[in-house]
């Protein structure tokens, strides 16, 4: 079995010094970018709203440091159109915005409004705004809310730390979800390599009706939402259907904790726990960084980078992406940054497909990556449709397992684009 490399699982996250400047994009979620409501020269404080949600599927953006708006800039995301962003010069004081008040909720509408106002998005990496996700169609019968604490990607331990250090928030959030969305069961799903988190949450669940911890084997991609739904409930999400169509919602454990924290204190999502790891980091650990901090500051806090650093990855090694510069900011969905050197960073040389079928055997969606690659190379759109490349979750298992080191995961992404005519 492949190593999980959870080196930092025992590191309690430390807050990094306030960066001199943060770069906050208006688009850190899927959906339309938020509307910027501040101008150059304005003074802002921590938690102050600087980007208003423009449409339903959108999330507000808050200032993560106190200081002055230095520049309106553009942020080049990994994919998609460049979006507006702001650079805030920090005054180092971290003054809290005076408008921050706890917002107790009494009904579903108030709860959803609080979720929206907290600026929380799918913090596991998907980045889908949480409020529209929790807004259910009328008549939806909800059987399960799965709180995703699987954290199956190697290296990343930020969710683990949330569950261990902020157990009360995760628990409070779970209770809120149970109270306002009314599912039959709330299941906290954790992989068995996080015994401390399992123990803490199991102690809380004991004797509570409809709440339980589901211990999963540590196996990537356990935390993928459709995989999780199948492994926990045995239900299969049909093609084109949503998770709510089979009576399930999957929500990341850190997302749940942030919701609870907002309702308790009124402080929106302005900082997050990031795992800083990899063979080129001198002291791998977990840190708490304000949103918008350049990743350079995080590495500096962790003792800097070794000289032989070859590759910086934003996210985990399986689904994350290499970045071209250390000025890339930490955004809401950044759960880890990795600096790799030597063998870890080497790009494999692909050779011809030997038709061994390992990619087919291991695909969590039961697709046939080798066939899809063939169809892609021949630009056969109809064949791609037959092979259901649209169901690919881009977990990267096929590329990881391929003995010929073929770039199957990248081909899958491109195949989807070809299929959708982009």
């Amino acid at each position, binding site marked *: 079995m492949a190593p999980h490399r959870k080196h930092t699982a025992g590191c309690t996250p430390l807050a990094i010094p306030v960066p001199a400047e943060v770069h906050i994009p208006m688009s850190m979620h899927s959906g339309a970018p938020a509307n910027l409501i501040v101008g150059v020269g304005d003074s802002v404080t921590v938690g102050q709203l600087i980007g208003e949600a423009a449409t339903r599927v959108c999330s507000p953006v808050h200032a993560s440091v106190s200081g002055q708006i230095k520049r309106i800039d553009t942020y*080049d995301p*990994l*994919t998609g159109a*460049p979006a507006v962003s702001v650079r805030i010069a920090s005054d180092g004081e971290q003054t809290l915005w005076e408008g921050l008040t706890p917002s107790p909720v009494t009904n579903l509408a108030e709860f959803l409004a609080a979720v929206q106002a907290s600026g929380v998005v799918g913090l596991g990496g998907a980045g889908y705004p949480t409020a529209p996700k929790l807004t259910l169609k009328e008549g939806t019968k909800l059987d399960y809310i799965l709180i995703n604490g699987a954290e199956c990607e190697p290296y990343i331990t930020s969710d683990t730390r949330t569950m261990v250090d902020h157990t009360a928030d995760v628990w409070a959030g779970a209770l809120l979800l149970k109270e306002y969305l009314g599912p039959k069961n709330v299941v906290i799903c954790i992989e068995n390599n996080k015994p401390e988190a399992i123990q803490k949450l199991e102690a809380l669940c004991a004797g509570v009706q409809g709440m339980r911890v589901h211990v999963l084997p540590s196996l990537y991609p356990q935390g993928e939402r459709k995989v999780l739904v199948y492994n926990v409930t045995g239900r299969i999400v049909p093609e084109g259907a949503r998770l709510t169509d089979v009576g399930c919602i999957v929500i990341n454990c850190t997302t749940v904790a942030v919701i609870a924290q907002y309702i308790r204190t009124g402080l929106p999502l302005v900082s997050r726990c990031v795992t800083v790891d990899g063979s080129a980091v001198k002291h791998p650990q977990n840190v708490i960084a304000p949103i918008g901090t350049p990743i350079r500051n995080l590495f500096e806090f962790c003792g800097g980078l070794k000289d032989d650093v070859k590759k910086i990855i934003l996210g985990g090694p399986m689904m994350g*992406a*290499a*970045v*071209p*510069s250390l000025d890339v900011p930490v955004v809401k969905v950044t759960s880890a940054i990795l600096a790799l050197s030597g063998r870890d960073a080497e*790009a494999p040389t692909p050779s011809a497909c030997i038709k061994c079928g390992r990619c087919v055997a291991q695909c969590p969606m039961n697709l046939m990556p080798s066939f899809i690659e063939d169809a892609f190379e021949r630009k056969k759109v109809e064949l791609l449709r037959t092979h259901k490349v649209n169901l690919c979750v881009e977990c990267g298992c096929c590329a990881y397992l391929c003995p010929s080191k073929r*770039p199957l995961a*990248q*081909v899958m*992404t*491109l195949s989807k*684009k070809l299929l959708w005519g982009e």
Partner: protein
Amino acid sequence: MNMIVIAILSVTTIAAILAAVLCIASRVMAVEVDERLQTIKDCLPGSNCGACGYPGCEGYAVALLSGDGIGANLCPPGGAVLVAQLSEILGVTAENVAQSIAVVRCMGDRDAQQTKMEYKGIETCKAAKQLFGGAGACAFGCMGYGDCQVVCPSDAVCMENGLARISPARCTGCTLCVKACPNQLITMESTSIATAVLCNTIEKGAIVRKKCSYGCIACGKCVRECPSNSIIMKHNLAQIDYETCTGCGRCVEVCITHCIQPLRPIQEPVAMESEATLV
């Protein structure tokens, strides 16, 4: 013996009846095919490039004969010769054919453009675009992996030091490269134009300067110097209005970063080299 005769006779009778039915059916249910269809198909280039907007050459031929007044000048690869032929077949007056060629709006080859990373993924522009817009510093410029070269049916594109160059002599104007470029860097221009702004960036001058030595920095010198006021500055990029451009070449002379280029001399020598590399 008798049985054999009966068999032959009965089979022959059945055959005769069926033949008669088929004869009548073919008359009654005949689909009229314009005999000009084959002639037109023979005239068309047959590369099925789709530049006319119809599904392949046959689609265009059918559309021409449908009598909907489809212009006979929609096939750029065929050019004026084809228009004349088609007009003769269809009995219409030959219309003007707008001959256009593809122009790559970038001069940022590997020497001119800074790189922001080492890209080791799948070597196509579409794949490189997925990762922060390619290895080059400029997210608007040519990525140099040759997606346009792959689709070109007439071998008009050659990749030179990480930059696509199009030979005007070979380009038939089919527009396949325009669709293939993920940066929308290739545009179709009339063959009559004299100069073009060979840059596609919309970033501010100071940023462009750091990224590419050929990038348009929006200094506005060309706008001020143009005797016919044909150049405007839009989104930090000079744009020439070809309706009023006289082709005097003043903009080429004054452009500080040399991103405005005379089309012919800059691309002609390349055409020769491209032939050399292609062999």
